[in-house]
């Protein structure tokens, strides 16, 4: 059984400072990033021309269509379309 005194509690509170705000935000945006990825993949499956554009030059194709996905989505798309 651990016993705590005020000094030890103070020390332990210092052990867990906040993570960088940007990191936390990026992690919290994962659901939105996933929806964005799913939307792009669904469209690529339904639209051959879009799919071919993605395979030829992923970033340009996304930019042309007005997508601004984050790095993780781009990395995942590159992985998927290079394997296909």
């Amino acid at each position, binding site marked *: 059984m651990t016993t705590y005194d005020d000094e030890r509690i103070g020390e332990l*509170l210092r052990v867990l400072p906040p993570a*960088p705000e940007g*990191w936390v935000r990026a992690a*919290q945006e994962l659901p939105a990033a996933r929806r964005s990825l799913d939307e792009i993949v669904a469209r690529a499956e339904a639209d051959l021309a879009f799919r071919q554009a993605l395979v030829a030059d992923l970033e340009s194709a996304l930019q042309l269509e007005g997508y601004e996905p984050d790095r993780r989505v781009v990395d995942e798309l590159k992985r998927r379309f290079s394997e296909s």
Partner: protein
Amino acid sequence: MSQLSTLSDAELVQRCREGNTDAWNELVERFSRYVYAVCTRGYRLSEEDADDVFQEVFTRVFTHLDTLRNDAALRPWIAQLTRRLCLDSITKRGREQATDEPMAEELAADLAEIDEAFTVREALATLSDTCQEMLDRFFARDQSYRTISDELDLPSGTVASRIARCLSKLRTELEGRNEGPRGSRG
């Protein structure tokens, strides 16, 4: 501090599975400090590597939440995942980083302390919003009494005494947890 912060880990997992975005935000918030500390204080990863591991941990948690068999085991699952990814990161760096790796005993002690610190933070979440803010701002965020006084709109001469009293309340909460099973978040 939101209503979601009072949910148990199991309840939080349920809501995340239902697609509740606020619940996911709370999950990240709840474990972000822990993951960060394991990466930087435990495994002493560089900021860049720690960032990569941090994002990978939460990506995997998000992607594989459905496979978690015991929802109440969220914390040990995240802990194990983080440790594994930290080790992978060190291995990827190869021998050039070998001398920076924490010795095994020191690592075990640091990780145990991080776990203990997380328990303290769980207890902190049961205190009033003001106490939570004061203790977090002073001890974890290194804010001065003046900054705390300005941002929480408290008389500056009272901040130190208030922090002392909040610490006492936190101690009482932790002692209560030691005494027997309570409805904790874990």
